[in-house]
């Protein structure tokens, strides 16, 4: 698809606008940024597919660079075989989910995917531990102690695991998220 070039055709633009939560301007800016990324990518590596940015270059994006979940974000939104490169449409998907006007439903769905590290469709104890570690930083001095971690995960499961199967599934996750008014405003990445 020639979607990554800076000249988007009118139909394509309209289509993108219809299918994502982005406005025309946002799509245009995104296409500009993506073209820049492509150029950067071409300089650093020479074996790239056409119209795709490698994961390494993509994570250099200033909006993502410092994010502790950047690799997860890339993994969730990438549609390539090994989840290691982003096409323009993947990029748009990502921006749409993180945009202002995306609904809580969409946002919570992607948040769930991002936090579901092993990809089994439920947040298990291991997933939660990894999530907390990423939130607090993985260094030894900033990490929670083992006891604290166990207590924390026990509490989280007690609070949100409604069907008591030891994991948090998507419905339960959404149930929790919908109680937080701040989530929609904090789950946002603006270009």
């Amino acid at each position, binding site marked *: 698809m020639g979607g990554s070039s800076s000249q988007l055709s009118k139909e394509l633009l309209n289509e993108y606008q219809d299918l994502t939560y982005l406005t025309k301007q946002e799509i245009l800016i995104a296409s500009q940024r993506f073209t820049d990324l492509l150029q950067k990518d071409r300089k650093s590596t020479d074996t790239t597919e056409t119209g795709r940015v490698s994961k390494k270059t993509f994570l250099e994006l200033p909006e993502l660079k410092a*994010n502790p979940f950047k690799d997860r974000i890339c993994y969730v939104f990438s549609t390539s075989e090994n989840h290691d490169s982003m096409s323009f449409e993947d990029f748009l998907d990502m921006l749409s989910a993180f945009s202002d006007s995306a609904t809580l439903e969409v946002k919570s769905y992607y948040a769930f995917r991002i936090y579901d590290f092993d990809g089994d469709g439920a947040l298990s104890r291991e997933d939660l531990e990894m999530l907390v570690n990423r939130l607090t930083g993985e260094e030894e001095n900033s990490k929670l102690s083992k006891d604290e971690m166990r207590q924390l995960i026990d509490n989280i499961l007690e609070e949100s695991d409604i069907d008591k199967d030891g994991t948090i599934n998507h*419905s339960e996750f959404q149930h929790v998220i919908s109680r937080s008014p701040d989530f929609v405003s904090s789950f946002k990445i603006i270009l």
Partner: protein
Amino acid sequence: MSVTFVDIPDVQEDYSPCDEREVHNSFSSVIEEAENDVLLELIPRGRNSGNRRNALCEYHHATMRILANMPSRTIGRCRGGALSEYYNRTVRKRQSKKRPSLYSMERRARPSVKQKDLSEEAEEEHQRLLVSELQKTSGAQRIRLLQSFPLSLRVKRELRYLTLETDGFRKGRNVNFCCSSVSDRISLATHRFWLMLLSALYALRPWHAALKQIGGRFGSSALSYFLFLKTLLGFNLFMSLLCLLFIVTPQAVHPHRSSNPRSFTSLELLTGAGYFTDTVMYYGYYSNNTLNDGCSSSSNTSVCRGGKGGLPYHMPLAYLFTIGFGFLSTCIILVYRMSCSFGESFRVGFFSGVLALKVFCSWDFKVNRIRCVQRQKENVCMQLKELLSEHLPDRSNPDFKKRLRHVCVLIFSWILCAGSWLGAALAVHMISEHLHKDHRARQRTGGEPEVEAMLLPLPLAVSLCNLLLPYMYHALGLWEKLDSPILEVYIAICRNLLLKVVILGVLCYHWIIRKAKYLENKCWETFVGQELFRFVIMDLIFNLLDTLFGELLWRLILQKKRKQKCRTEFDIARNVLELIYGQTLAWLGVLFCPIIPVVQTLKLLLLFYVKKASLMRNCRNPSKPWRASHMSTAFLTLLCFPSFLGASVFLSYTLWSVQPSMSCGPFRSLNTMYEAGKFYIKQLEMTNPQLSWVSRIHYYLWENTFFIYLAAAVLLIVIYFHIQIVNGQRKIIMLLKEQIANEGEDKCFLINRLHSVYEKKSRRHRPKIGNNR
């Protein structure tokens, strides 16, 4: 008995997600399909995985089926979730079978993909189902639905394409072939131009980059201050536009005095008096007659010329209506925003899972600087540890002595606060009395600029109070050592707010009651306008000084002393209260000084840049947990309740029951400003008898109290109904919660019963199986 149990799942299937089905009527079949898949998936998972509860693993197939149909499994099941689950499941299935991924599959219209196995057919069936459901919806709804699917763009496009195709539409892409090359090129060029224009407009969006930068470094908490400032700026821009268009410009076009007697000295920018007194800035300058056919009242030819075109422009009416309209629309917007904000931040029903919320929702994805991310991590870690320590059961109760001391400290600090409010009110009262006596005495002797400059100590004193006392409250808050940081913030806000309310109350009393009595022969409205102008300017100056000394100097001192990078925290609550105070001044002053919204707009613009620069240079992230949406709701409420409501009460009192001064302003020769409307209607009736219906309508709807009572009664009834509905909903929520708890117990009970039944059954069967093996 076991036979009946085995039958249960099929019965259950019929109604388990029934309420969901009602809501998402259009997608019932897809959801149902997805749910059936859940059932199928659940069974092997329950058997094989070792890390689930051991007891669960042994449960029988039928038990699992029943479990999957339990109401709790379907809580919050939504259309998007179901759809995506079903899509992702197919992805998983394909991956597990080592088949090409779903995305290469999407082009299955091509002949190259030939073999289709069973699962592929099932998937196509799924897709067909989705498409047919999509077709049932209308155009706009379909777009909204497609947007809300958490699927990748390519899949969405495919779905849309299929939907359109079967609808009988052709896609736009192929239409272009029939166009001639010239028109094609023209349309392309215009399209390209339009794109350029769009990107240019995007760059112009006000403060997008600045807000992103602030959000990137400080997260939502500091951002909420700037967003609040932006909201205020919007209100002021609207008000300034109204005032400029309908009050200031018409009067400026028809100046009624030949020249200003006073000359301009730079002191006016501070005092607002002197040269400015007889200009469009103040109430006193505005004329009390019709502007563009006022040849009789003025000999000026420029006035006469306007009379030729259009309707007469009656200044008092314009003045009254513009300000009334401005306030009314501001009120509506404010209340609307407040209700939205309340709806967002205080959802019906509360959820006690603090830790889960903290872990799932606390990360701010906006933050994009490495150092700030580090800081956010530290904050999250600290807050989690605090919350965990609260959850630990061994919280020792403080002994009696400590508690007594704590109570004493609390009482003492509140007494101190009350003293500060009383003191501030008294000081403002005394200074104001003294200065105005002095002012009157000096005015008789003459010496213009000095007279006006002598009035400056009052705003100076008030601003000083506003600047210094909050620091005292902050210190008191540190001394009190309250348990919850949220409570601390609210108490600080409450104290600051009361201080401001007290001071402004005293000032308003002075302006209206005393000025209206004392300055009878003078134009007291202009005087009040000047006072408010001085207050606004002084507030700005003190804000800037506070930023300079409180933040910049403090940082320099800290850096010198500790020899390291050390920054102060940005006190959002205090800064927002300053904004609210400034806005109240502006609202109070609109009637007396129609140019004040413009001044306020400029002030806010300046403040935005200064505060942003100071924040970037001098401040660090607040370490306290800051519930941004709750706090912004609180601020909006404060802006609405004491600030806007107070200003409106003040203005309505002025309009309805204070006599305007006789010698100046648009309302001279009237008993109250409000009478202008009545007066005009009477005049209209006299000059144009055919328009008497206007006066009759005015009489029956406005003067007659019956309609007002009726409107009030209707409003009260509506409010009553709403309260009843909300109460009912609350009760239903309570009942549902109880029901959920009961269901949980039922579930445990049933599972145990089932378990025991199947255990018995399998024990009966096991010997046979053993024999077979």
